[in-house]
């Protein structure tokens, strides 16, 4: 093996290693401290529930739809960073529905997502009346879900917001949530991975990096301490740490955010 080949392999190995470290060390949303100010009031409204056992593979995103609206924006994060947000707009371009999906590794993580969503809702939701919507689900309109439903089914969490008015022909949030629930796919969740070849030290002018991902995955590249130029070149802002962040999403809404650090010199 040539020196050059050995160097590439070592770099590749480093990238793989770092990728694994990024997965293991990803930032988790900190659970609220039970005795923290305000948590008692929150728990008075939304009592904690024991996570259910079992898991799903994910949500078939291609089956999600809001009749009368079209998908106009999609924002993707890992579960801890907010999951997937899908915005649906009417013909005038006004966003009328937003669906959030978080395919977590387990039900506890899904509950944390639900808690996070509920902390951001000023009205008081109640337990959803339709048990088919999930095992930990809250809704407006006395639990019937006219405009808002937040809940989880095992390891899959979601939120549905439909901006209906009195004369609206838009479906109720519960109807959209039913469609989402039907798109949940049986199986165990497995999250997408990538192979990145990035030297541990890169020049200030930037360095190209190698990336191998399955073609069916949706890929988003960004960097911290620098930016990613076309041609898959990592360009640091200055000397020091720079991290390549690879976000992968598959067709079942499973998101991985992999981090590959390097040092710019």
């Amino acid at each position: 093996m040539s020196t050059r080949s050995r160097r590439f392999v070592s770099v590749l190995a480093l990238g793989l290693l770092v990728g694994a470290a990024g997965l293991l060390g990803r930032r988790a949303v900190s659970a609220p401290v039970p005795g923290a100010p305000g948590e008692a009031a929150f728990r008075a409204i939304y009592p904690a529930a024991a996570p259910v056992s079992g898991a799903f593979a994910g949500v078939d995103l291609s089956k999600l739809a809001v009749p009368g609206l079209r998908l106009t924006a999609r924002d993707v994060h890992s579960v801890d960073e907010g999951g997937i947000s899908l915005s649906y707009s009417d013909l005038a371009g006004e966003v009328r529905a937003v669906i959030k999906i978080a395919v977590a590794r387990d039900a506890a993580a899904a509950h944390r997502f639900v808690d996070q969503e509920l902390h951001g809702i000023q009205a008081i939701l109640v337990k959803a009346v339709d048990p088919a919507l999930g095992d930990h689900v809250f809704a407006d309109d006395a639990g019937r879900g006219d405009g808002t439903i937040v809940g989880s089914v095992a390891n899959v969490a979601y939120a549905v917001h439909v901006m209906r008015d009195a004369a609206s022909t838009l479906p109720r949030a519960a109807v959209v949530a039913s469609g989402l629930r039907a798109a949940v796919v049986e199986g165990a969740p497995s999250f997408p991975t990538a192979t990145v070849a990035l030297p541990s030290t890169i020049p200030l002018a930037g360095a190209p990096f190698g990336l191998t991902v399955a073609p069916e995955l949706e890929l988003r590249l960004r960097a911290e301490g620098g930016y990613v130029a076309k041609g898959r070149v990592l360009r640091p802002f200055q000397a020091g740490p720079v991290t390549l962040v690879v976000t992968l999403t598959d067709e079942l809404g499973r998101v991985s955010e992999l981090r590959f650090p390097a040092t710019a010199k």
Partner: protein
Amino acid sequence: MEVLVRSSVLGFGSVLALLAGCSSNAVEFSDDAGTTTDGGSDSGGGDTAVDTPPPSTTCTASVQVAPAAPLAQLGTKVATKVQLTLADTGGATGPHPLKVVLVSAAGAEVAKLLDTPNAESLTGGTLGKPSVDVVPADVAGLAPGKYTIKATLGCPKVTTAKIGEGQGDLHFARLGAVSIGVGGGDGTRVPLMYHAVGGTQYAYYPIDGDKVPATSFTDPATGEADLDSAPNTMRAFPTTPWAELDTPKTASDGSVVEDGVIYPVSLALGTKPDLTFTLGKKMAGASGPIAAGVGVSGTPLVRIVIDGQPGTDPTAPLADGTSQTIRLAASPVAAVGRYDVTVKWHFEAKAPTGWVTVAGAEQSAVLRFYGVLGNELGTTAPYMPWVGVVDLGTKAASGKTTPADVRAALVKEVYENFGLKYDRKSGASFYTSYTSGFAAARFDLGLFLKRSKGNTVNCTDCASILSTYSNMLGVKLHYAIIQGAGGKSGFSLNPIMGIGSTVFGSPFDSGGMGFSYHAVTSQDATKTINDATLAVDGDTDPKTAPQTKLLVQDLTGTNYLTRLSPGTPEYTYVDQITSVR
């Protein structure tokens, strides 16, 4: 060899041409020289005789050469004046021929600047102080370096003639700044960043003031000069600031373009910034780039002077590629706002008598400044002011100078002009998440700027929007949470006017008159409250109609709670910071 005559042309008769480079003994005579006038003849009735003194038969000519500046700008069409002082102490009358030439250091004549048989015609009929023009762009083959202007004043046809010769040095160089950096000067340069390089969300680009000029020429292509795009054609600074608010200019490969662009600079109010002018290195020669010639040994010192303010000497002699930093005499940001400022400057060269302006060495550039009160966020992307926020925020608070006025302007702007409406279904947040209980709010600012999730918001969003805009303008606002007292599940409301509404009442379609929680902003841990989510009833009885709309602008924490709720809600989180992404 070109003849460059900018002075008036003589109207006399035949003239013997001066010989180029005439020797000290060469004497020229005019046909008209030495003629006399008989004033007594044909007097038409008068018989008074006038004795005319005999014309002098001696010519002792002299000429002094004094360029207006010791340095001339290569490539310019603007003339450098060369003052000549002509005299004939011998008193010879009649026209004196005059020739002025430009000679290289090697002794070669490169241009004939003036060649006239009658120097008197230049200054009203007698020898005086005419001037000749040196127009560098009109002289082919001029290169940076030292030249000599040689003038020769001949004599009329007289018995004794001594021609006069004089000379003066004139250096040539290509003077021009190719970039301007902006420093904090006597105040503060506030960080700025773009949030979506090339349109990619979460791809941040801080504008590094130490590296990225506020404006600059476009970098030359390989084999081109940085100062000139062609011989005698200086490049120009861009005239229009970069208009995109989310991304810097990017090249086809996605890399950020840092040259040839006017990038904004944010300054704390009252700052007189330091402008660092960096000189170009190369000018376009006839056969390719050549050194611009500034700072070469033996050439006059040069400096940059901003028009309208006193000149200051550079800390070190300027040379090709070096920089001079000058503090603006007045702040371009007296109040909050966006200011596109045209800065004009010129070059001066050091003469024995002091600094003198170099003709044709003027430049100007447009700089974009934001005037803010500071930065209450951070200095590391994305926790630092965003261009997209500062641009809009400074418009909303334009002309303000105090934190209170900025807060009030932003509350009004968010509440009335952002086109936002409250989520009347459930009061849900669309752009903000609390990542730990009600602590650690995380604001999807990039998505909000695009309105990716629409215009529907709740109090959490409004607190994020208001505090983020305010903090990015340097006016501190943190968020606080209001909940039912003693851990109660929610609290009741007085009639309010939610954002996007025009009437007082319930914020919800359901008619519900309670919140599970409410988020507001405060600069002092809830002693003072600002809230862009809703307007309260400002009269003496906020519980019942009629209502008087009152925006929540620096209300005391107690006053606000009284107007918000008939119950006894309390602030449970009082000083929380929102992060952005």
